[in-house]
């Protein structure tokens, strides 16, 4: 058995010849060693001590879990592998800027001939980091101030605060995140926020002030999240010319809801995956913990990817959702689903599909949308191996429908209603991958099945976002 010492700042007094294993070298086959050292490869070793140097405010008990595996290594390759894994775990806590691993033979009175000392040299993140940006867009300028306190209390808690002061709207958010020590995937997050949004497709302005608490934990292969949210919503007309249906929704309401979501993600990347699938199911029940809004909302997202011949990928996705009002109050425009635009059914204007009144789109209580894509590398592969790999061409087929359902009629009637007057579109375009989070698209779209009242954007359409159909 080994012991863990967490020491501050002093380097190891008895540092033997620097074996200095850097993380990138861990997979390297040979190790330099001095002639006096014994060859330890493939010989059984015992990890006697694991040190962590460079701790300031981080509490030791948090790190014990992350490095516990290293003690179980049996030979040198195993030690290197497990140290690499422990390094990854330490980094994902989000509290260290840098982690380096040093593996050395044991020294000291109780040193075994095949004993090893492993040292993690860590650099903690600063106690508080701030950022200040100005943003201009959408006829509004704003100043955004951000503050982040990583590792606020020593056990990888994270506190973030963001404040945005604009010419038209002000918004802020404060969030506190705490993982369970030893089990980073289990965590709690508390948020307080005020956000404002303007939705020109509905001539609607919405201000939400709310608090929420979220609990995440993994169960077998899935990731589950339970959340309670209390929101004070204020709706208003964006312009004097808003339709009367939108004007009727103006005012204040309180939503207090419990929601649960389950995610299984086996894709190799969330943007332009080459294989794997995604299943996301989310449900929300509002009204049983107080508040004015009372509904049950279900929605799901499925995506499957498969690599075909010649480096091309076939991707199929399906989205759907249902909003069931509970009681006799009608649903609010802020809870309904919207469809259309460069991120869902391409070829139609942003969220400009489905029920509408005088040009303002009111959203619907039930929807489905499906997409079939074929991604290929750029023709003639310019810039291969570098910049060109960020681009893909894609051929797509999107279809979907959004409507209001009369819940007295029964499921057969609903399916029939969702199946008639389907909107669909096809086309091709270029996709640019931005980091690991977002993508840009430039498509040529041909919308079909357009119903009266829908607004289309046929021809060239540009889209940017995180979640695409």
């Amino acid at each position, binding site marked *: 058995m080994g012991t863990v010492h967490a020491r501050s700042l002093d380097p190891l007094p008895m540092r033997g010849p620097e074996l200095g294993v850097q993380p990138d070298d861990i997979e390297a086959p040979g190790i330099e060693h001095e002639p006096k050292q014994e060859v330890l490869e493939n010989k059984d070793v015992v990890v006697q001590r694991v040190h962590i140097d460079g701790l300031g405010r981080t509490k030791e008990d948090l790190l014990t879990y992350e490095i516990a595996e290293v003690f179980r290594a049996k030979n040198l390759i195993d030690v290197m592998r497990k140290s690499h894994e422990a390094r990854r775990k330490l980094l994902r806590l989000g509290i260290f800027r840098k982690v380096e691993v040093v593996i050395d033979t044991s020294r000291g009175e109780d040193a075994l001939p095949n004993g090893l000392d492993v040292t993690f040299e860590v650099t903690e993140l600063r106690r508080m980091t701030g950022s200040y940006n100005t943003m201009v867009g959408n006829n509004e300028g704003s100043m955004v101030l951000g503050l982040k306190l990583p590792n606020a209390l020593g056990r990888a808690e994270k506190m973030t605060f963001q404040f945005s002061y604009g010419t038209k709207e002000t918004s802020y958010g404060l969030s506190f995140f705490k993982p369970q020590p030893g089990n980073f995937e289990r965590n709690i997050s508390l948020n307080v926020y005020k956000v404002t949004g303007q939705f020109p497709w509905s001539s609607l302005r919405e201000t939400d002030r709310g608090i929420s608490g979220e609990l995440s934990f993994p169960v077998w292969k899935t990731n589950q999240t339970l959340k309670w949210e209390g929101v004070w919503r204020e709706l*208003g*007309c964006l312009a*004097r010319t808003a339709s*009367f249906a939108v004007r*009727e929704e103006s005012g*204040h*309401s309180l939503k207090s809801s419990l929601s649960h979501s389950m995610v299984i993600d086996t894709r190799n990347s969330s943007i332009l995956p080459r294989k794997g699938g995604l299943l996301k199911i989310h449900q929300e029940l509002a009204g049983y913990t107080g*508040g004015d809004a009372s509904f049950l909302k279900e929605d799901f997202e499925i995506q499957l990817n498969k690599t075909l011949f010649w480096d091309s990928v076939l991707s199929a996705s399906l989205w759907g959702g249902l909003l069931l009002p509970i009681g006799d109050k009608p649903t609010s425009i802020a809870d309904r689903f919207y469809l259309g635009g460069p991120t869902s059914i391409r070829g139609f204007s942003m969220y400009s599909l489905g029920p509408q009144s005088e040009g303002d789109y009111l959203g619907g209580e039930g929807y489905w949308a499906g997409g079939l894509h074929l991604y290929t590398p750029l023709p003639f592969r310019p810039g291969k191996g570098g910049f060109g790999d960020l681009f893909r061409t894609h051929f797509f087929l999107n279809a979907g429908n959004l409507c209001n359902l009369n819940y007295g009629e029964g499921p057969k009637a609903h399916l029939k209603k969702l199946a008639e007057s389907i909107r669909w579109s096809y086309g091709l375009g270029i996709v640019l991958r931005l980091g690991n989070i977002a993508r840009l698209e430039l498509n040529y779209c041909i919308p079909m099945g357009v119903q009266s009242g829908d607004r289309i954007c046929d021809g060239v359409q540009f889209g940017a976002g995180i979640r695409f159909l």
Partner: protein
Amino acid sequence: MSLAAEAFVSQMAAAEPWPESATLYQPLKEDQILLSDCASSLAVQAYLRMCGLPVQVVCRANAEYMSPSGKIPFIHVGNQVVSELGPIVQFTKAKGHSLSEGLDDVQRAEMKAYMELVNNMLLTAELYIQWCDDPTAAEISRPRYSSPYSWPLSNILAYQKQWEVRRKMNAIGWGGKTLEQVYEDVSQCCQALSQRLGTQPYFFNKQPTELDALVFGHLFTILTTRLTSTELAERIKSYSNLLSFCRRIEQTYFENKSS
């Protein structure tokens, strides 16, 4: 509204006749509406009845937020939305219905002056009594105003409205007044109205005008609304010609209406 906007609205409005489906929106009658809003709404209803224009009254909990200016009542005619008595009078005039056409310039100026008096005195006194007088605010105004909402939103909205009205009272100089002084002001206003009315049936002799509708709306509501004390109603009852004026208008224009 700016001059250009007014002219534009008049052009648009004049094009169509008054439809059957015109609606007037106000807060919920039983549980939510307050004295000042009820008075304004009744004034508009009386005016439209005097013009012979049919309108349906619809109660909505969020009527105040639906209104383009934030004030009650507002009417939805065709696809136009107009709020408050002044703009509504303009709007109906553009459609060719007016009650004050027979007046000459002097009388019209007098009518405007009295309407200003009612708005500055009676309406402000109603707001003061509702929101600045603590017993009334706690027992009547806040519970009624917040009745459609659930806790804690109800408390937030009620207090927000109270602070807003108190700030406005301070801004116009009524913040320092006592309840007695407000009652005195109401009495003086009623005295001026009573003197102008004299023994005539309406303020401008034979025909009712928007001034009659406005005065009726406020006085009738004060007489028939339960407050923490009956002092306000008593002050008005001391002017008998105003009482018979209210009764006359009620019988002539509202006897078929179901309250």
